[in-house]
Every structure is written in structure tokens, then in C-alpha cells.
């Protein structure tokens, strides 16, 4: 009985969201607000359980090594809440500054060590490998990277050789965007397949119940 009810609710909510395709309507709005409300409550429970309980209370209660230092994020976290009081809301900048500093430091090292260096290394390819196809492929990759970078990074007017090179760059970029678009269509259709398959199997299950 509970299973049948769950299927009705889930299928009903799926159809309620899909009703937006006909036009904005109260049924869609109902489902939309339920979604936002439910998500807000979910994130509150999430914050309590994973952040406050597991990352703060538990390490302190169990006297884990280094737990005393948790006073630092608690201090900055509390400062973040000063945004509730307009007169002292500026203090929250200290917390924002702390997170910005960590984010910047992490991005700096991650991007250089994890992306730029290995990707540049992987672009330094032999243009003659002894195999015609591999050599051609390597050439295409190298030209693709260089012309794309030239298109993006030369602030000089794109005329003459530079203009022609950046023109090749933009054609390469269009190919990349085209590939991404093709894949995006695929992704969106897959999600629809997921929902319609769910609806169809729900119908089949409900038929079994009756």
C-alpha cells in the first residue's frame, strides 16, 4: 500500500513539473515551491549533521588531536552570522576574506600543478612519429592548442599573420563548441529518457497493484 502511494506521489510530482511544458500553471508552481521548500529543509539537516555534528561537535567531544583549533572556523563562522545585524554586518567580511584566501591558494596550486603543467607537457608532441596518421593527429592537436591560445591572448589587432592564425583558432573553437553542443543534446535527452522510463514503469507497477 505504502509502495503504491509512493509511486502515485512520485509520478504525480513528475507530471506536475512536466505540466510547465504546456505553460506556467498552479500545478507546476505547487511542485516548484514544494521542491524549494523541501530542499531548504534538507540543507538545514545536512548542515547540522555533516558540518556541525561531525566536523565540530564530534571531534571536540572525542578530544581528537587538533580539535582545539576548530575554534578558528567557529569564530569565523559566527562572524559570518553578523550579516543578520546590518550595523555590524561588515564584520562578516573577515570570514569572507578567510574563505577567499583559502580558495585562492588552493586554486593557484591546483591549477598550475594539476592542469597547466600536465596539459602543456601533453601538448609537446613529436610532429613526426614514423606513422603518418599519428603524426597528422599530433600536428592537429598542437595547431589547435596554439591557435586557440593566440585567439584568446593576443590583445594586438587581429590582422596579417596574427589575424589568419586567430581565424584558424576560431574555427577550431567552433569545432569544440559543436562537440560540446552535440554531447549536451545527448545529456538532456538521457535525462528525459530517465523520467519517461520512470513514468512508464510506474504505470506498469500500478497496473499490477490493481
Amino acid at each position, binding site marked *: 500500500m505504502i509502495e503504491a502511494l509512493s509511486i502515485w506521489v512520485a509520478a504525480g510530482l513528475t507530471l506536475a513539473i512536466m505540466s510547465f511544458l504546456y505553460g506556467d500553471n498552479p500545478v507546476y508552481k505547487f511542485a516548484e515551491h514544494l521542491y524549494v521548500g523541501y530542499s531548504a529543509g*534538507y540543507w538545514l539537516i545536512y548542515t547540522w549533521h*555533516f558540518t556541525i555534528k561531525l566536523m565540530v561537535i564530534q571531534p571536540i567531544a572525542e578530544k581528537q588531536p587538533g580539535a582545539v583549533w576548530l575554534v578558528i572556523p567557529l569564530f569565523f563562522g559566527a562572524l559570518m552570522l553578523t550579516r543578520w545585524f546590518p550595523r555590524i554586518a561588515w564584520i562578516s567580511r573577515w570570514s569572507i576574506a578567510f574563505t577567499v584566501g583559502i580558495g585562492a591558494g588552493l586554486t593557484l596550486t591546483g591549477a598550475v600543478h*594539476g592542469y597547466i603543467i600536465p596539459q602543456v607537457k601533453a601538448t609537446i608532441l613529436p610532429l613526426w612519429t614514423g606513422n603518418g596518421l599519428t603524426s597528422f593527429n599530433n600536428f592537429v592537436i598542437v595547431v589547435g592548442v596554439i591557435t586557440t591560445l593566440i585567439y584568446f591572448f593576443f590583445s594586438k589587432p587581429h590582422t596579417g599573420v596574427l589575424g589568419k592564425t586567430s581565424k584558424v583558432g576560431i574555427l577550431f573553437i567552433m569545432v569544440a563548441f559543436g*562537440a560540446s553542443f552535440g554531447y549536451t543534446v545527448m*545529456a538532456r*535527452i538521457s535525462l528525459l*529518457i530517465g523520467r*519517461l*522510463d520512470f513514468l512508464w514503469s510506474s504505470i506498469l507497477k500500478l497496473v499490477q497493484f490493481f
Partner: protein
Amino acid sequence: MNGENISFWEKLGKIDRRWIFLIIGLVVFIPIAFGLRMTVHVSPAVKSAYDTINSLPEGSVVMISIDYDAASMPELQPMLKAILRHCFDKNLKVVLINFWPLGLPIGNQGLEEVAKEYGKVYGVDYMNLGYRPGDIAVMLRMGTEIRSVFYGDIKGTPLDSLPMMKNIHNYDDIAVVVGLEAGSMGDAWVQYVNARFKQDLILGVTAVMAAGVYPYLQAGQIKGLIGGLKGAAEYEKLVNHPDFGHIGMASQSWAHVTIILFIILGNIGYFMERRRKRGL
């Protein structure tokens, strides 16, 4: 006659979009309802992912990271199931980890379902670490000791009480990490875990992200790439267990053909209109 043609194309260009919605809906729904199937061909990127796992000796540990939620479930859940089937079939140990809290129940459902199919035992053949916030911090800490972030598994059971976890402490004890990605965690796995710990990685990503992941594959930062529902269908074929990926391929194919026809029709209308305007 010419005038009639022009007005036809003009009319077609202004067609109510709900007709387009209806056509797409039907094209996707009919193959599902009638159970139509199509033959799937395997691409080198997916084969490479399969070969990486297939070459692991029995008892090796595969960590699967659930970095998605319900929004991308139709694409990534079939990948999870196909990879789990491959691992269990080869008697590999599976450790599930979550970096998207909303994906926690989804990943666990897939794990339990496939483990049951193969009669695998929790704590001996597979386990679920659950979720801890901190993203990159969690990834980096696991480089020294998994227990420094995960004091227990998803149910709170201490890790040392699970037989399979006795000798699993950090990335040195994990043969390969499979990241199933709907966001930026895939980049984090590559840029922090592969770059710092030289951990072998396979990425299974939503189709939206797939084109952007090929540079990682060519650079050798990942060992294999499974892209979108088609990638999942390819993996299903490799493990000889057709599932949702195969169910979806007929709908996927005909929806793509329909969208291409829309593009062609839209362009014919556009060029007819342009010719008419130039003629005026």
C-alpha cells in the same frame, strides 16, 4: 506558387513550440513503451576504462566516487551498476565514497542492488564510506589515512571492524579510483589526487562534461573515460549485461535524429526567408 512556399516556411518558423515538445516526448517515449533495442558499439575511451579494471588482479580495491545526485541519475547510475558488475564478477573489492550528499542514498541503492545479484557480503567484498563534507580536504587527507576523515562507514560501523578494510589505509592500497561525475569533483580528483598521489583514475561523466574531459585522457591523467548514457551502454555491453543504458539507446538515437531534422528544417526556413528578403 513561390509566394505560397514562402508563407509555408514562415509559418513553420513560427510554429507553437508545444508541438516540438510533443514530438520530442513521443519520440523518446515510444521506444521505451515498445521495448525497442539497438546494437551498441564500443568506443576506445570506454574500452580503455574497461581494460584498466579488467587487468586488476583478484582482490584489488576499486574506489567508486558518487559525485552526482538525482538530476544526473539516468546517465550515471547505469555506469555505476555496470562497473559494479564488472568488479564483483572479477572478485575485486569495492569501496564506495560520496562527495555529493544528495547522491548518498542513490549510490547506496545501486551498490546494494548489484551486491545482492552477486551474493557479495558487506564488509568483506564491498563497503560504503558514506559522505564527509570538505571535498578536496577529504581527498587530500585520504592520501595519508582514510580513518583521519572517515571514523566509520555509512552506518557508523568502525572501519577496523570491517574485514576488508584492515589493510586499506590510503591511496597506496587502492588500485584505481572511478569518479562518477556530474560537476567539478572530477577535476579535483585529477588535479589533486592524480597529480599529488599518482593515483590511477577513471572518469565516468555526464555527456555535458564529456568533451571537456578528453584532454585529461590524452594527457594520461585518466586511464579511461565513460561519457553519458551511451558510455554506460557501451560498458554494459563489455560486461555482457544490458540494462538501462541499452533501454535508452533507441530513444536516444531517434531523439537525436529528430533534433537534427529540426535543425535542417529550421535552416531551410531561414535560408528561404533570407532569399525572400534579398529578393524584395
